[in-house]
C-alpha cells in the first residue's frame, strides 16, 4: 500500500496508576498503522488491552489512566499534542467509535433523532432542518425501516440490533476517516451479528474509512479483516495479513486462540484451551508476558521479553522461537 496511512500509532503506552503505587500497563508499547479502506482486526482475550488501545486513540482514557508515551498521528496531526478543545473537534468527526453494549450506549432520556442530530449540528454546523434530514438519511443508510418515526422514538423502544445500527449511524454521520468498532457484535445474537458486520463492511467501502475492528471472535476476523494484530498483556504479539496468520500461525498464543475455535470438519471431544488466565496488567510475569501459560516456554522466556520481530515481509511475531527468522518450534 503506497497511500498515506489514515492512522499511525507509535510506541503507545497507556498506564493506569492504581492505589498503593501499582501501575497497570494496559497498553505497553503498541505500534500500528491503518490505511484508508482497510479493516484491521485487534484480537485477544478480555483484559489484553484491546479496548484500551481503541480508547487511547480516541483520547478517552479516564482517570486514573494516562497515555504516558508514544504518538498517535492522523493526517500529520499528532493527536496526543492536541488540547482538549481541539481533540473534541476530531472525535466523532474524523475518528468515530462504536461500543460493545448497544443497550446502554445510547442515552435513555433523549430521542434517537436528538442523539444523531446533535453530532452533525456540532461538527458539520448544519441547521436544525438540514440536520434532521441528514439524520433520516443516515438511518435509512444503516437499514432502519420507518426512519422518520424512529427519529422520535427512545432507545428503549428499539431492539439491540436496531440500537447498534443507530450507533453506527451516529458514528458515520460525519464521514470519519477512521472507525473504531469495539466488539460491535458481542452483545447481539448471531443472525444480527452478520448483518451488522456486513453493514460495517459496506459502509467502510463506501466511505473509504479505515476500520479498526476490536474483537475476540476469530470467525469475524477471518471473514472481514485484511490484517490481524493479536494482542496479549498490553502488547502486540503477532501481526500478519489475515490469511497468512491463520495458515502460518507463529505465536503460541495465537495458536492457542485458534485451537479453541470449534472446527466443523473434525470431530473432537474437547476444544483446546489456553491454561491459566490473562495476568492483571500490574503483575505481568518477568520476561515474556505469555511465559507462564506458554506450552513451549524456554528458560530464556522467563528472563527477558522478546521484541516484536519481522520474520517475513509482512509478518511480525514476538517470540524467541523465531529468533533467527526460522520456523523451529
Amino acid at each position: 500500500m503506497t497511500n498515506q496511512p489514515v492512522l499511525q500509532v507509535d510506541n503507545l503506552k497507556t498506564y493506569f496508576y492504581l492505589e498503593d503505587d501499582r501501575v497497570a500497563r494496559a497498553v505497553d508499547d503498541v505500534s500500528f498503522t491503518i490505511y484508508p479502506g482497510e479493516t484491521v482486526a485487534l484480537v485477544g482475550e478480555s483484559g489484553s488491552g484491546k479496548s484500551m488501545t481503541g480508547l487511547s486513540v480516541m483520547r478517552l482514557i479516564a482517570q486514573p489512566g494516562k497515555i504516558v508515551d508514544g504518538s498517535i498521528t492522523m493526517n500529520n496531526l499528532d493527536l496526543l499534542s492536541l488540547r482538549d478543545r481541539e481533540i473534541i473537534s476530531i472525535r466523532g468527526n474524523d475518528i468515530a467509535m462504536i461500543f460493545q453494549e448497544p443497550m446502554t450506549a445510547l442515552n435513555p432520556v433523549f430521542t434517537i433523532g436528538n442523539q444523531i442530530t446533535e453530532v452533525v449540528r456540532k461538527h458539520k454546523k448544519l441547521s436544525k432542518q438540514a440536520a434532521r434530514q441528514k439524520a433520516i438519511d443516515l438511518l435509512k443508510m444503516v437499514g432502519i425501516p420507518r426512519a422518520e418515526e424512529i427519529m422520535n422514538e427512545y432507545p428503549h423502544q428499539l431492539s439491540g440490533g436496531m440500537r447498534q445500527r443507530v450507533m453506527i449511524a451516529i458514528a458515520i454521520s460525519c464521514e470519519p476517516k477512521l472507525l473504531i468498532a469495539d466488539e460491535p457484535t458481542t452483545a447481539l445474537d448471531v443472525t444480527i451479528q452478520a448483518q451488522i458486520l456486513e453493514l460495517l463492511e459496506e459502509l467502510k467501502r463506501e466511505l473509504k474509512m479505515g476500520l479498526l475492528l476490536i474483537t475476540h471472535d476469530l470467525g469475524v476476523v477471518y471473514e472481514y479483516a485484511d490484517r490481524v494484530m493479536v494482542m496479549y498483556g498490553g502488547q502486540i504479539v503477532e501481526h500478519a495479513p489475515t490469511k497468512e496468520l491463520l495458515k502460518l500461525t507463529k505465536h503460541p498464543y495465537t495458536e492457542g486462540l485458534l485451537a479453541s475455535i470449534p472446527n466443523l470438519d473434525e470431530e473432537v471431544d474437547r476444544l483446546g484451551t489456553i491454561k491459566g488466565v490473562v495476568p492483571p496488567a500490574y503483575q505481568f510475569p518477568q520476561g515474556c508476558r505469555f511465559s507462564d501459560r506458554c506450552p513451549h516456554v524456554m528458560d530464556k522466556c522467563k528472563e527477558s521479553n522478546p521484541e516484536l520481530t519481522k520474520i517475513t515481509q509482512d509478518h511480525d511475531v514476538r517470540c524467541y522461537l523465531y529468533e533467527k527468522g526460522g520456523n523451529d518450534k
Partner: protein
Amino acid sequence: MYQYIIRRILIFIPMLLALSIIVFALAKAAPGDPFTGKILDPNVNPEVFEQQREALGLNKSVPEQYVNWASRFAKGEFGESITYKGRSVQSLISERLGNTVRLGVFALFLTLIVSIPIGIYSARKPYSPLDYAATTFGFMGLAIPNFFFGLVAIYFFSIKLGWFPSQGSIGGPGMEGFSEFMSRLHHLVLPGITLGLAGTATYMRYMRSEMLDVLDSDYVRTARAKGMSERNVLYKHTLRNALIPIITLMGFEFGTLLGGAIITEQVFNYPGLGTLFISSVINKDYPVVMAISLFLGVAILIGNLLADIFYSIVDPRIRYD
C-alpha cells in the same frame, strides 16, 4: 396515564381511612380529655363540665366517637375547635396554612439551589478539598437535630447579631405589598435554613453519587466519543439522567418537610400548622388534631403521586398504563 392517576387517587381513600383510625385511636389512648388538667374555676359547677362532656360526645365509647366524627368529616363538616371557642377547624387551618406552605417552599428552594450545584461540583471533582468540605458539611447537617440548629441560629443571628427576627412570621399588622413581602421573607430566613438543612445534606449526597454513576455510564462515554463539549456532556447527557432519582426523593422528602416544619415552627414560634398541631395535641383538641393529620396525610400522598408523574415525564422509559 389518566387512568393511572385516577386509580392512584382512589387508593387515597382507604389509606386515609386507615390513617384516621390510627390517629384517632392514638389520640384517645392518651389519658384525659379537653377538660382534664384545667384549673377548675370555683365559680363553675363541676356538673357543667359533665354537661359539656355529654354535649361533645366525650362520654361515648371510642369507636362510637370515631364513627360520629368520621361521618361528619366525610360530609365536609370538620367541626369546631374545642380550645378556640367557636372557631371552625377550617378557619383555624386556612389561617395558618399559608405560613407553613411559604416556609416549606422557601426551605425546599434553599435546599435545591445549594445542594444541586454543590453535588454537581463534588461529582466533577471528587476527592477535591471542596468535595471533602461539602461531605463534612453534609454529614454535620444530617447529624445536627433541627431544633438544636434552630436554637443555635437564634442565639447567633438574632440575639448576638440581631440580623433576623427570632420568632413570628411578619413584623406587624397592617403591612401591604412589598414591605409585607420583605418582612415575611426576613422572618423566613432562619426557620427556612433550619428546616432545609437536613434536606440539603441528603440532596447533596444523592446528587453527587448520581452524577458520579451517570458520568461513568456507557452513554456518557458515547457522548464524549461523539465529540460533544464537556458542558454538553455534563449538563445535557449527565444531569438529565442524574435528576431522575432526585425527583423521586423530592416526593418522599415532601412529607419530611412538613413533618420537620412542626418542630421548626415550634422553635421559632412561627404561626403555622405545626404550632397549631402541637398545641392541639397538648390541649386534646381532637377535631383540629384529626383534621391536620389527615391534611398532612393527603399532602404526602399527593407529593408521592406528583413525584411519580414527574418521573414519567423526565424518564421516557417509565409509562403508566
